[in-house]
């Protein structure tokens, strides 16, 4: 071949030069566990469903959500969203309003009549679920998905457990509750209401059940011995809320005192306000910082005119007069009496001092271990007796609806493993995507969208829902605030910032791939990845 003067070689591409051989470290794509997913007691893949919602794929988002939790419209109202407390977005501005988006998805699903996935192929196994609260409903759903037959029994006339009889309607409208429960029972769950199980062994063997899940909840309001005159009206908060839910509210008078500092105490006081109490006073023995109730519930209650006597205990109740003893916190933060007393006019006293579990159905069973008033279980939620599982408030737990739903899922998988006679394997957990893995430069500041609250004056007298939902526009905005911690969201940064064009953009499921022929291992892609989905690992020689 003729070449110009002094030219001896043909021109070739630099692609012959594999600069990847310079590398001592290589970048690899990883999935890290987002802190929201990590914190979710129901094990939702929150980052995953927000990702779908970001592009307006609400049905896909909802389907991803109900893989783990069949009650999003309910959770979007009653969950205390530990996900938001864990959210990394606080490093940029404020946590993503995950709970509000969840509710939007749940409501949208009800509006469009989206149904849950069909039940799995029949395994021929039968499972008895005792109690139709969030744990029982969650278990029934997951058991049906796995193909097991389910009989769901409950002692009350309607399903829902504490969701119906403990949570007031202004927090959870009954139409929403009914819609999400119906969706589960429509999967082919045999439902028996008004049926109290007295002996679990008898019930199990008579019905020929292969496994049992005890989700009987904690329905018994704790009582303390408070000297009270005959005429004094004392009721426990659980009974009070249950009667209100049955539309048969007790007459409490105009001055109602609630004793206790948990969420139930707040529910009772706010309900009393709605029933016409002019004074709804909470008496709590410690201060606001130590109050176990969730801060936003406290905020809402105070906004509705509920008042609180901090650092006080009820000494006695007679002649429409409460005697309170003032307390002080000692160095360890425990309240101790001061010997000072004060009086408070009251027509009735509601005790919200915690709840106990009615486990009389286990009295004939010696194998199942009951300690501290609850059933002891292994990680599979199985008790010491084979095939008997327990969860929700009846097992050791934080006693929230979300924990209960999570227990239901875990128990269903535990039962499935037991029935198939295989080992229970819990899924791999990726490393946590902590804030130091993020490059927050790439996220614009965008304060969260608050849900509209009902005007306070309106909610003092009725049971209309207090917190409104997000509009579609707001929900989309909120979903897009997700930082996608630890999981690639296709921002193209790695593809764009590589000085050696060593990132291949594939699109689709795989998204990107490194071309290790040319990657020199500079690490810019890792440094500039907004969400921490790439890491450098040493090159093995």
């Amino acid at each position, binding site marked *: 071949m003729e070449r110009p003067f002094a030219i001896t070689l043909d021109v070739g591409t*630099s692609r012959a030069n594999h*600069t990847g051989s310079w590398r001592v470290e290589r970048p690899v794509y990883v999935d890290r566990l987002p802190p929201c997913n990590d914190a979710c007691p129901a094990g939702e893949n929150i980052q995953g469903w927000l990702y779908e919602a970001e*592009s307006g794929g609400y049905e896909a988002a909802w389907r991803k959500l109900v893989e783990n939790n069949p009650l999003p419209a309910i959770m979007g109202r009653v969950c205390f969203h530990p996900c938001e407390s864990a959210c990394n977005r606080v490093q940029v501005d404020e946590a993503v309003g995950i709970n509000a988006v969840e509710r939007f998805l749940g409501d949208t699903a009800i509006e469009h009549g989206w149904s849950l996935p069909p039940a799995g192929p029949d395994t021929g196994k039968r499972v008895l679920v005792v109690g139709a609260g969030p744990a029982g409903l969650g278990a029934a759903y997951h058991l049906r998905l796995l193909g097991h037959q389910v009989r769901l029994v409950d002692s009350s006339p309607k399903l829902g457990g504490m969701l119906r009889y403990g949570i007031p309607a202004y927090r959870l409208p009954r139409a929403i509750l009914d819609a999400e429960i119906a969706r589960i029972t429509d999967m082919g769950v045999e439902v028996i209401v008004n049926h109290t199980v007295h002996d679990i062994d008898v019930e199990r063997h008579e019905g020929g059940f292969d496994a049992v899940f005890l989700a009987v909840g904690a329905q018994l309001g704790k009582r303390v011995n408070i000297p009270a005159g005959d005429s004094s009206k004392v009721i426990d908060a659980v009974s009070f809320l249950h009667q209100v839910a049955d539309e048969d509210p007790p007459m409490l008078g105009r001055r109602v005192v609630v004793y206790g500092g948990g969420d139930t105490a707040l529910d009772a006081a706010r309900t009393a306000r709605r029933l016409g109490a002019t004074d709804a006073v909470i008496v709590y023995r410690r201060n606001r910082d130590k109050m176990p109730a969730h801060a936003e519930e406290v905020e809402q209650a105070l906004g509705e005119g509920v008042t609180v006597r901090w650092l006080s205990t009820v000494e006695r109740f007679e002649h429409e007069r409460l005697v309170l003893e003032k307390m002080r916190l000692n160095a360890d933060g425990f309240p101790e009496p001061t010997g000072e007393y004060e009086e408070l006019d009251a027509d009735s006293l509601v005790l919200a001092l915690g709840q106990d579990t009615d486990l009389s159905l286990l009295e004939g069973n010696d194998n199942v271990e009951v300690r501290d008033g609850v059933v002891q279980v292994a990680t599979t939620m199985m008790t010491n007796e084979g095939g008997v599982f327990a969860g929700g408030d009846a097992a050791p737990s934080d006693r929230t609806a979300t924990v209960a739903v999570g227990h239901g899922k875990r128990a269903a998988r535990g039962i499935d493993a037991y029935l198939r006679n295989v080992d229970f394997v819990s899924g791999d957990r990726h490393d946590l995507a902590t804030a130091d893995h993020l490059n927050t430069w790439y996220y614009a500041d965008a304060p969260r969208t608050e849900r509209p609250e009902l005007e306070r004056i309106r909610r003092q007298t009725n049971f209309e829902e207090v917190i409104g939902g997000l509009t579609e526009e707001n929900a989309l905005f909120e979903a897009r605030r997700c930082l996608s911690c630890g999981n690639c969201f296709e921002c193209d940064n790695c*593809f764009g910032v590589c000085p050696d*064009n060593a990132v291949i953009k594939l699109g689709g499921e795989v998204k990107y791939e490194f071309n290790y022929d040319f990657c020199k291992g*500079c690490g810019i892609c890792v440094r500039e990845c907004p969400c921490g989905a790439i890491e450098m690992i040493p090159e093995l020689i």
Partner: protein
Amino acid sequence: MSEQRVHFYQVGSFAVGNRLLSADDRTVQSSPHRTNSIDSGHRACQGCGEALGARYALDAAMRATNGQLLAVNATGCLEVFSTPYPETSWRIPWLHSLFGNAPAVATGVAAAMRVKGRSDVRVVGQAGDGGTVDIGFGTLSGMFERNDDVLFICYDNEGYMNTGVQRSAATPPAARTATTDVVGAEPGNSFGQGKDLPRIAMAHDIPYVATATVADLHDLERKVERAMSFRGARYLHVFVPCPLGWGSATNETIHLARLAKETGLFPVFEAEHGVVTNVSRIRRLAPVEEYLKLQRRYAHLFGAKGRPDIVARLQAIADANIARYGLAPERDELDNREDA
């Protein structure tokens, strides 16, 4: 040319791409069909800012000219690492002559294209800071003065890196190079005027002058596109960190470029016909220490025998830039920062 602001809060407007944007609204670099003007296999160091800056600028110019582009290169890293005979990394027509004559060669190429009736073919001249502010300065000034139809791009890494990190007229004060050792009362490069080439270019009253960094791709691509909408002499000054010459970690290249802008040390602006028309304001104001401490060429300013007095003089330079160009952050950005 219109610029549309779309708020995708998840990635802001700062990441390279966004799956939620339509293809037309994404950056050139986010496209799998970008030119890749400079191909894989080039021998630039790990984390090279110049290789990145050249691909950003030329790919954008390729899109703006519909692929009718020709590049003339001065001697320097960019030329050496891309074309060791007989290999080439260039996927566009590319010419190299000498260190000092790139602007003149580019002028000649543009003239030749005009004579051939191919005024659709546009010419880019490119060089490092040495080839631009020192060795090629005379021919560049002539190119400006004649208003030749060339976009000249300077990839500024603040020194002669290819030959072993010697000082150029673009090396900042106090920086250690092979020829400005850290000895004496004023260790490193001396304080002086340097050569602020964007402002010198503006003094020629050419149609378009702009500065950019490899840390803000959207801004850089927009400026290249804007430059290509003019005929006549245009100048783009791109800030490209050099891990080897600056003694910085290879993964810090973009972060350093961002800090140069966020401290005020490298003002990012554009000017038309000698008048500043737009500045990129600081988003998260940072003290110069944050930028300096990541580079070993400034190591002598810190530690037990540090020179806080010199750091203060560098801060004064940053503050003067902020005042001169009006770079101070917008108020609400500052508020957000303080909350965070």
